[in-house]
């Protein structure tokens, strides 16, 4: 169905002007990448939904032993993400690197069958799965930026992220449907999940294009990207400021777990409803991602990102503030989902045009890694603040931190000539 809506990427460099953008649906490559993400997320969330059941009731393992290596995994994934991004740029094989990432995660589903009851083996399989996820996201996002006219990036990322979340939504439903049909056979869920992930790889191989004509980066006679050139990203003013800003913004996030925990604290929410908080947030994300992406193309990406982090700050204030009851839940989850919708894809849409096309995957990997590492720091800091001052004071401090981060980000990025090459005149 979607194939009929594909607009061929223009053979000429994308025209700049609102007239053309009105016609631009998202490009075929973005639809293809969105489809791959959708299918992959069905597969991934299937496993995520049943993994606790499998470990505790299927294998009778004590899952508390699993958290130990978490920090190590996060660090290794961050490093490999940048290495993968650089390799994608150097060999101009973004599709290949993304495909390896998708394939790794697919194979990991089968690994769960082979791991049996061994905790180290299961830990290794989960690490491979996460590695695949880390490796594929930067080349995938780079392909989106390279197949979309700069003026339509917000929309492209909005559509991609919305498709992604639809998959994440369907995953648990598919998993429970499989369990209903076959009884308590978790193996059947893993095999089904693998088959779905493999289908996503097939779609990627057949429909995702490495280059679109006129992207201006694919001349095989160009010298290969070198490590020195990659480090040059840190010397170029705009790119450096962008990576810094991304890391700074990452410091504003304390993590979903804390947000839901505080919400549950405030509400005295029945513990069994706890998982639904994440569902509510995803729903807001899913609904708002595309409209906010389009809005970002209209009014500029930086204002939308700033708006998103403002929503995050308001979310924190609400968690410490006067509203109570169901209005608190509805407001918090809408704003929190809105924060994701306004920042996750839009930030990459903001980054794309700033990063040289030759080094775009590396640059995007740096942006994402900076965010991930900063988040690791901020979640630990928030935990310490909670210990020292208690939850209410800690969340107020987090709101203050959001304000400070926003000021810093504006200082770094609010230079219209550099970061908003396509500002729409009023």
């Amino acid at each position, binding site marked *: 169905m979607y194939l009929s809506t594909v607009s061929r990427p223009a053979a000429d460099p994308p025209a700049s002007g609102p007239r053309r953008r009105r016609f631009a649906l998202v490009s075929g490559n973005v639809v293809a990448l969105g489809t791959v993400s959708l299918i992959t997320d069905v597969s991934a969330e299937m496993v995520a939904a049943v993994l*606790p059941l499998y470990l505790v*009731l299927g294998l009778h393992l004590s899952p508390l032993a699993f958290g130990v290596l978490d920090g190590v995994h996060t660090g290794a994934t961050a490093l490999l993400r940048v290495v993968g991004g650089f390799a994608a740029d150097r060999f101009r094989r973004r599709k290949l690197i993304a495909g390896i990432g998708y394939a790794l995660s697919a194979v990991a589903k089968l690994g769960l069958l082979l791991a049996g009851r061994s905790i180290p083996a299961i830990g290794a399989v989960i690490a491979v799965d996460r590695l695949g996820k880390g490796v594929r996201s930067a080349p995938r996002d780079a392909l989106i930026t390279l197949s979309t006219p700069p003026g339509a990036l917000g929309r492209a990322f909005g559509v991609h992220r919305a498709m992604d979340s639809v998959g994440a939504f369907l995953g648990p439903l598919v998993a429970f449907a499989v369990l209903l049909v076959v*009884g308590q056979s978790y*193996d059947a869920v893993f095999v089904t999940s693998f088959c*779905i992930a493999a289908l996503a790889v*097939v779609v990627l191989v057949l*429909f995702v294009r490495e280059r679109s004509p006129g992207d201006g980066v694919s001349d095989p006679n160009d010298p290969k990207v070198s490590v020195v050139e990659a480090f040059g990203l840190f010397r170029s003013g705009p790119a450096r400021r962008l990576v810094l800003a991304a890391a700074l913004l990452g410091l504003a996030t304390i993590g979903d777990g804390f947000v839901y925990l505080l919400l549950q604290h405030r509400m005295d929410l029945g513990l069994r409803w706890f998982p639904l908080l994440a569902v509510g947030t995803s729903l807001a994300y899913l609904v708002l991602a595309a409209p906010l992406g389009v809005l970002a193309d209209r009014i500029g990406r930086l204002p939308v990102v700033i708006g998103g982090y403002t929503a995050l700050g308001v979310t924190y204030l609400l968690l410490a503030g006067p509203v109570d009851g169901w209005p608190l839940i509805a407001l918090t989850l809408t704003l929190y989902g809105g924060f994701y919708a306004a920042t996750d894809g839009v930030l990459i849409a903001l980054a794309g045009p700033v990063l040289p096309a030759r080094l775009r995957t590396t640059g995007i990997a740096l942006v994402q890694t900076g965010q991930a590492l900063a988040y690791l720091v901020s979640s630990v800091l928030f935990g310490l603040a*909670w210990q020292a001052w208690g939850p209410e004071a800690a969340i107020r401090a987090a709101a203050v931190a959001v304000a400070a981060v926003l000021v810093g980000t504006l200082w770094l990025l609010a230079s219209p000539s550099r970061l908003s090459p396509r500002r729409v005149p009023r």
Partner: protein
Amino acid sequence: MTAMSTRAKLAVVVASAVLLGAVAAGYAATAAQAPGTPPPASDGEQPVTLAPGPRLLAITDRHVSTVAATDPAGPRTVAGLECLRVYAAAGTGICLKPETAWSYQMVVLDAALRQTRAVSVPGLPNRARVSASGRMVSWTTFVGGDSYTSSGFSTRTGILDTHTGATVASLEGFTITRDGRGYRNPDVNYWGVTFTADDNRFYATMATGGRRYLVRGDLAARTVETLKENVECPSLSPDGTRLAFKEAVDADPAKGWRLSVLDLGTMRVTATAETRSVDDQAAWLDGGTLAYTLRGDDGQPDVWTVPADGSGSSTLAIPGAESPSPLT
């Protein structure tokens, strides 16, 4: 790739989808044919009862069952009641059982296995305990994915007073004293409650910051204080002087647990003769014998016993059963 038309590509995708779908369906079909658990019918001769007597309570193939204490490997009486974890004392039972296909509930049972209360619990059943008087019940569940490290697991431990109906859904709101000082941290988890004779004080495991502590709690005051590190799943002896517990080898749960006994008077730890890793909250069958579940490589459970004083050796007690409890 450019040689392939869109139609050809679509045909390949459809063919792949059909093929992969067939693989998944085929695997699911063989998996579904694997023998499920036949619901054992209640034995005609005598129903399962929780009334005190010389019998042991345990779970056989997910169903409540009893055996004679003197001949635990002998004939077994199995009830139709399905539980994942069970315990009983003084004619009161606790059973963690499926509520729907993916949610669980804690039910309180009378001596005739009739349900007197039911509470929906979050997550997956892990531990269950009844105080010696039969008045207090406690349960622990594993909850996935809501810990703030986002990928980790956390636990929820609740307590119910069966006389008043007062329920603490989670101990996480209790005031903590750690090493003599006030302490709070969002990562605090509790598991494995065991009650003292006054039905107010209890012992449990508290985990925070990567460490696991034995805590003594006061239900009325809503407080806990740490007593000792690396003590998990405590189980108080009938005379109230010793705690059986699982001690992580080298204080690292990834290396497994040694079933040990802590003397509360001297705070000295004695390892039992059981050298295999025990991941269970042990039950005291009498003042000197511990019962616990061990799983084989295939995940099949057996109930074993071992002397509590470190002497002797472990003995297979109830083959193919788990979650043992004396009926006292």
